[in-house]
Every structure is written in structure tokens, then in C-alpha cells.
């Protein structure tokens, strides 16, 4: 276990079956876990259910946790996998939208920002556009900006190459920025 992991001692006690330590672990990490779950599912009730599911899985799996990564990174991985599986089940009967089409759609429709808006209004519009991003882009945005993870931590958590994480972030930023383009700016600087 990494010496820098402040939760390492709690994990060690959890592995001995200490429920008080587990309650402390939940209290310390629930905000991040819920936020990631919400980032994937975009539904408060689903996010709440999946957060509970994540901790139940964690409780069962913690005795086998060998501390090769920080427990928080491990929890991110469990959360993302659990939520993505849930999303797949939820969308089983829905028409699947191609991720790149959805990204183009965000860029085309944009955050719907009128020409003169306050900073607050523009930010809100951009956040709303983030919610419409394809899952894989939204996920790295959530982990990078809200959970403040490094590129490497995201790559480790999502089991993705570092270059892919950076590429996803940049494509998402670009799509969001493209959406801010005013109609009269036209195609002069097509991407």
C-alpha cells in the first residue's frame, strides 16, 4: 500500500472486517463516488443506487485489495465499471447514439448561448453541454475537472492509454468551444 494514501489504515482495518472503519471510508469517499456515478448516469436516483452498489461490492472485495493503487483510484474503477454496466442495461431498449455523432451534435447545437450573456449564464450553458457529451468524453471531463485527477490517474482508473485520455479531453474541449461559435462566425475557421 502506498505510504501517501491517507486511507490506507482505514482499508487495513476494513480488511479485518471493521465496519466502523468502513463507515469512515464511506464518509470520506462518498462525495467523489457519487459524483462520478452521477457523471456517468446523469440521474440522481440511479447515481444513488449505484453508489450503494459500489460500496457493497467494495465491502465484499476489500479483503482481496492488495494496495497496488490508492484505494480512491480503485473505487473510481469499481464505480465507473458498475455505472457503465448499469447504463448498458438501461439503454438496452433505447436507440444507441454513436459517440462521435453525439460529439458533433454538441459542437453543432452548442450550449445555446445568446450573444450577450453573463459569465454565470455562459458557464451554465457549458455545463449543460457537458451533460450532452458522449459518455467517454463526459467521464474524463468529470474525473479531470471535478475530481481533479491527473491524466495518469485517469488513465490508471479507466485502464486507458495516457494519450487516449488526453485526446478525449481535448476533443471534448474542442466540441464545447465549437458550440460557443456564433452563427455569423461561420465556417472561416473550420476544425
Amino acid at each position, binding site marked *: 500500500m502506498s505510504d501517501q494514501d491517507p486511507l490506507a489504515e482505514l482499508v487495513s482495518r476494513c480488511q479485518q472486517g471493521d465496519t466502523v472503519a468502513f463507515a469512515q471510508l*464511506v464518509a470520506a469517499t462518498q462525495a467523489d463516488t457519487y459524483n462520478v456515478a452521477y457523471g456517468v448516469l446523469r440521474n440522481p436516483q440511479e447515481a444513488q443506487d449505484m453508489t450503494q452498489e459500489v460500496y457493497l461490492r467494495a*465491502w465484499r472485495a476489500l479483503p482481496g485489495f492488495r494496495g497496488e493503487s490508492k484505494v480512491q483510484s480503485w473505487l473510481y474503477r469499481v464505480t465507473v465499471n458498475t455505472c457503465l454496466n448499469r447504463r448498458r442495461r438501461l439503454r438496452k431498449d433505447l436507440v444507441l447514439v454513436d459517440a462521435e455523432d453525439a460529439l458533433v451534435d454538441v459542437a453543432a447545437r452548442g450550449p445555446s448561448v445568446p450573444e450577450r450573456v453573463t459569465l454565470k449564464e455562459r458557464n451554465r450553458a457549458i455545463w449543460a453541454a457537458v451533460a450532452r457529451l458522449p459518455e467517454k468524453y463526459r467521464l474524463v*471531463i468529470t474525473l479531470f475537472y471535478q475530481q481533479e485527477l491527473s491524466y495518469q490517474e485517469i488513465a490508471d482508473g479507466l485502464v486507458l*492509454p495516457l494519450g487516449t485520455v488526453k485526446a478525449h479531453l481535448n476533443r471534448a474541449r474542442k466540441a464545447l468551444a465549437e458550440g*460557443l461559435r456564433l452563427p455569423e*462566425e461561420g465556417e472561416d475557421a473550420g476544425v
Partner: protein
Amino acid sequence: MLECDRARRSIVQYIADGEPALPVYASLRAHLGTCASCRAEAERLRAVEGALRVMPVAAPPVGLAPEVMRRVNSLGQPPREEWRLFSWETWVPVVAFAVALLIAMISMPANLLSSMTLYELESTLRALPGQAGGWLSPMESITRNELFWVIWTSLFVTMAGVGFSLSLRNLSREATAWLAEWCDRLTDVTDRAWQRARNAH
């Protein structure tokens, strides 16, 4: 517009990194000073970056932690991990070594121990430093090269076992990353081709 195309490729990362005054961005900064279109793009990216940095975090509902603990308590104790002296990364080389030893013992000539006296062993060890010829000659006299092959085989199997186990350790991680990388590249190429085809029509 080649200059703009180049600028557009690095401008996203430049803004995301906080517009550092690095030499690598010198030409981009110069370009932004002269190109209104790219300056507007930079402005949009700054707005996006600013908004993302203050994006509100979804707060968990109040009763979440107690509900988790209620369910955890109803589950009871988690199954304890089976007691293990070593991880598999350790015991695979140990097993490899044991197999090497077994092979060495099986292939050992029956007359080896009886024919190799302590005196001969001692003289072999004494002859070792700096005298390779002197090291091999006692072997030949003892078992006609068989001892050499026994040692060689056991070393080979041990090393192969250690190498194999270390390769296995990294195999799944690297394979997953490699596959993901290639899937992404393939998706990118397909998307671009699709976009081009769509634009062409």
C-alpha cells in the same frame, strides 16, 4: 491556411495547460497575435476552460452513507481472503525453480555422487577464480560432461520460468492498454473517413 491548421492542433492543449510561456508554444503565440480567427477560437476555449474549472460537483443525498452501512451490516462480515504466504508473482518463480531442481535431480547420473568425492569438489572450487579451463576439467573427469549439462538445464529452466512469470505479470495490463489504443485509432480513422464521406455528399 496551413498556419491556422497547425495552430488549431495545439491551441486546445495550450489553453488547457494555462497558456504557459514555453518555447514550444512561441510560434502559436505569435500566430495568435496576428490571426483574429484563431484568437476567437482561443477565446472560446478559455471560456470553456473557465467554466469546466468551476463546474459544480453533484452532492450525494444526505441519507446515502447510513443506507450503505445498513446494507453492509445486513451482509455481515466479508469473506476473508484466503491465507497466502506469497503472491503468485513470487510463487511462480519458486515453482519454476523447484521444477528445475527436479529436472536436475532426475537427469543426474546415478554415479555422480559416488564418483565425486569431497576432495574433488574442493579442488574444483579452488580452481574456479580466473581459471575456466581448470573449472571444466574436473567435471569431465567426474561425469563426462553430465554434470555440466545438469547444471545448464536447471539454470535454463529456472531462468525461463522466472522470465515467463514476469512476462505474465504485465501481459494482461499491457494487452488491455494496447487493445484500447488500437480500438481508439481505428475508431478515429473510421470516423474521419465517415465524416469525409458525409461532407462529400
